């Protein structure tokens, strides 16, 4: 094990884990001391859900290098299937923790299946077309979820596409998903600790994936598809792998998020939510997992702390997206920002040969 810690990436990852654990412990201390406002307490579970969303989207956008604009769609699928599962388990399992766990697993699996089904067509495309098709799928999921009615009674689950009355529920049955009104009457199961554990699991999966054979193949596909193929790497297979993993984690986050409220509507998981998560990823740095966590946290807490910020928050996000992209991709601006950054950080993850001073030529 000692050998492993000499590796820079491993050390970097350890810092990420420690940061998350420290933040959790700190929050628990503050909570027990009663230093956290109730508004902020209400944001704790959503923050953890958004962190998982951001980290999972980063797998598609940063690591795979394809823009997904429908990530909220997977969150939606996970949320609703998780909610249905929690209703089904209500009479079977007494422990709320276990019910939450199973609901999140179902949410993840269903979203993963959707990721697979959507991935089959989507991963044949690339670039702008891929992005716009993920947007289309996200909107389709939202539209369909808006027209679905699901009820549960003694006869089991019932589905209708027209109205809750059409479900024909027998005595004692209840509507779980009520079309545009969304899922109603949810028992709150999610806790901050559950969210914290989900973040750790997400980090474990994503960081270990990146630093393994499959992760390298995914990044190879990102950097140069033709070269990757010429080295015997199936582009489609690894794009699917990244996309499905990303969808699965978003599904778990969706279930966690939905089971934190008594009602959830499909419109919550719209294009704006996808963009919000994208802002976290872009601001945190594409491919930078720790950055996603920090950005998701700050940008979710900030509107709560700074009420004035709430009004211009979306405008600010838009400006952030534009400025970060310009700063990262325009040679002149990049140099300027590099100089500013260089003042704060002397170290770099990968040594540049100019700085290393070692050259063959």
């Amino acid at each position, binding site marked *: 094990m000692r050998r492993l810690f000499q590796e*820079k990436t491993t050390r970097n990852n350890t810092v990420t884990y420690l940061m998350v654990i420290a933040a959790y412990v700190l929050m628990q201390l503050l909570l027990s001391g009663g230093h956290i406002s109730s508004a902020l307490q209400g944001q704790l579970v959503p923050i953890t859900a958004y962190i998982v969303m951001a980290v999972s989207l980063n797998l598609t956008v940063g690591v795979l290098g394809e823009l997904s604009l429908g990530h909220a769609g997977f969150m939606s699928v996970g949320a609703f299937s998780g909610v249905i599962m929690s209703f089904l388990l209500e009479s079977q399992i007494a422990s709320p923790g276990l019910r939450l766990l199973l609901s999140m697993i179902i949410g993840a699996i269903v979203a993963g299946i959707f990721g697979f089904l959507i991935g089959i067509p989507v991963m044949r495309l690339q670039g702008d077309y891929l992005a716009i098709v993920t947007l289309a799928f996200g909107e389709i999921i939202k539209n369909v979820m808006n027209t679905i009615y699901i009820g549960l009674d003694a006869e089991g689950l019932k589905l209708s596409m027209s109205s809750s009355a059409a479900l024909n529920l027998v005595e004692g049955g209840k509507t779980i998903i009520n079309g545009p009104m969304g899922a109603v009457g949810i028992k709150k199961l999610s806790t901050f600790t559950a969210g914290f554990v989900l973040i750790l699991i997400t980090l*474990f*999966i994503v960081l*270990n*994936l990146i630093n*393994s*054979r*499959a*992760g*390298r*193949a995914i*990044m*190879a596909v990102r*950097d*140069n598809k*033709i*070269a*990757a*193929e*010429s*080295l*015997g*790497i*199936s*582009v489609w297979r690894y794009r699917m*792998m990244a996309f499905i993993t990303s969808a699965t984690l978003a599904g778990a986050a969706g279930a966690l998020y939905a089971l934190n409220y008594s009602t959830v509507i499909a419109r919550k998981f719209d294009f704006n939510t996808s963009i919000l998560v994208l802002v976290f990823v872009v601001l945190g740095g594409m491919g930078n997992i720790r950055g996603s966590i920090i950005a998701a946290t700050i940008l979710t807490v900030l509107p709560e702390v700074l009420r004035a910020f709430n009004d211009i928050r979306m405008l600010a996000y838009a400006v952030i997206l534009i400025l970060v992209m310009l700063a990262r991709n325009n040679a002149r601006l990049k140099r300027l920002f590099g100089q500013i950054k260089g003042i704060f950080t002397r170290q770099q993850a*990968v*040594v*540049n*040969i*100019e700085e*290393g001073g*070692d*050259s*063959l*030529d």
Partner: protein
Amino acid sequence: MILLTEKERTRMVPVPSHSIIPERDLEQRPILEVSRLGINFGGLVAVDDFNVIVGRSEISGLIGPNGAGKTTIFNLLTKVYEPTSGAILLDGQSTEKMNTVQINKAGIARTFQNIRLFPSLSVEDNIKIGLHNQFKYDMLTGILRLPRFFSAEKHAREKVRELLSIFNMEHMAKYKAGSLPYGAQRRLEFLRALATNPKLLLLDEPAAGMNPSETEDLMKHIQKIRDQFNIAIMLIEHDMRLVMGICEGIAVINYGRIIAKGTPEEIQANPEVIEAYLGKKKDERHADRQ
């Protein structure tokens, strides 16, 4: 006399007239047999009636003016482009139904004219990606860090060192591939292709942008790698010193067709080649020296 017997032996090869150098490796099946290969892009014939045979450990060269279709031939061999006509046999096996990925698994690796590294990844990771199909373990093994992960990664690391040592690049293992100087990038791409354990290695202008001493060094290495790994190497190159110095067989391409084939001596003596291509180059080189 010797010439005569060699000509007799040539007849034993399946498509003798297609071979770049018919005299080699006749006891063994050639690694690559290409017959009547062609492609056209919307009516424009880019490559036509391309026939060659490459021996198991032969170093061969494709030369010809820019735009003659040399890189297109590499793209056809590796199925980046689907040929419109013709057949390719790799180690006796038809590659008709294979795609680029399967071609690599079957034994052809290549480099690119405009270097295609994974610039944001380290030198080590670039080569490890070349080793993708040499040290396998599945996604879950990687995520759960099962014992197989550690053993496979260890072997891969050792293999990376071994490959880097060919060009004395071990100290660069942690450098970002995109930050390497041009020559080192070309060498890295070469090693990365070699890492896939090919039977035939295609090098697209390996000496481009190198100075004479670097080219000299590269020539030695190409021969050394051929001997050490016992593989066939086919290269596209404009540097005639390199081509004439190490290639055992040369095919000259112009307008998508082979206009001459043979040993370096034969090519240099071929009046058609001298007129169409080499004559001009020789004058230029002469001028350069003065």
